[in-house]
């Protein structure tokens, strides 16, 4: 079983609020990722990190930002949430070599 945790699982907030989605893994993986997934839709990579102090934008443009100060922690922040940010956000990590991604349970965000 994967040891990657996301909080909160569910969040309902008003427009303009700042939110941070937390993601932590205890596997010592260098690589971590954030995907966005709308209901019934495909996964889109929005951010990734290859290690501490390394962050890159993914294929899907996102107004969110990420940081990687510690290996195990990869939080995602929205400075001013809008209804268009309503989605499920999935965090993942991977170790060296195999390419296997371990996913968290997801954070389902609703912006009113």
């Amino acid at each position, binding site marked *: 079983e994967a040891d990657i945790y996301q909080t909160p699982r569910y969040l309902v907030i008003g427009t303009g609020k700042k939110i941070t989605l937390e993601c932590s893994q205890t596997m010592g993986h260098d*690589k971590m990722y954030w995907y966005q997934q709308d209901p019934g839709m495909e996964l889109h990579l929005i951010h990734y990190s290859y290690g501490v102090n390394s962050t890159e934008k993914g294929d899907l443009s996102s107004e969110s930002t990420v940081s990687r100060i510690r290996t195990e922690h990869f939080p995602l922040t929205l400075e001013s949430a809008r209804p268009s940010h309503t989605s499920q956000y999935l965090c993942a990590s991977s170790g060296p070599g195999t390419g296997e991604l371990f996913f968290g349970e*997801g954070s389902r965000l609703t912006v009113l």
Partner: protein
Amino acid sequence: QKEVEQDPGPLSVPEGAIVSLNCTYSNSAFQYFMWYRQYSRKGPELLMYTYSSGNKEDGRFTAQVDKSSKYISLFIRDSQPSDSATYLCGSGFGNAGNMLTFGGGTRLMVKP
């Protein structure tokens, strides 16, 4: 054209049926091929992993990759209601930081 394509379904089958799920991909440089299972409101979990062409079997599940036709398949034998989920195929390069490109997922429903 999307790099990895899947029929979204839903695919509805009776319990005990053999299920065939398929993906096509366009990038001939892809080397890793994976199938993830995602239950509703959960994160994806790795089901099968193959490298290059060939077959891989694990219990009731068989993954098949045909690189000449860029075709990926997942077969489920003796399908069970607990197999009802969305199945995502993913493909990636060997040295691109474990970056996976996912298909949109196929929703499977196995009816008792």
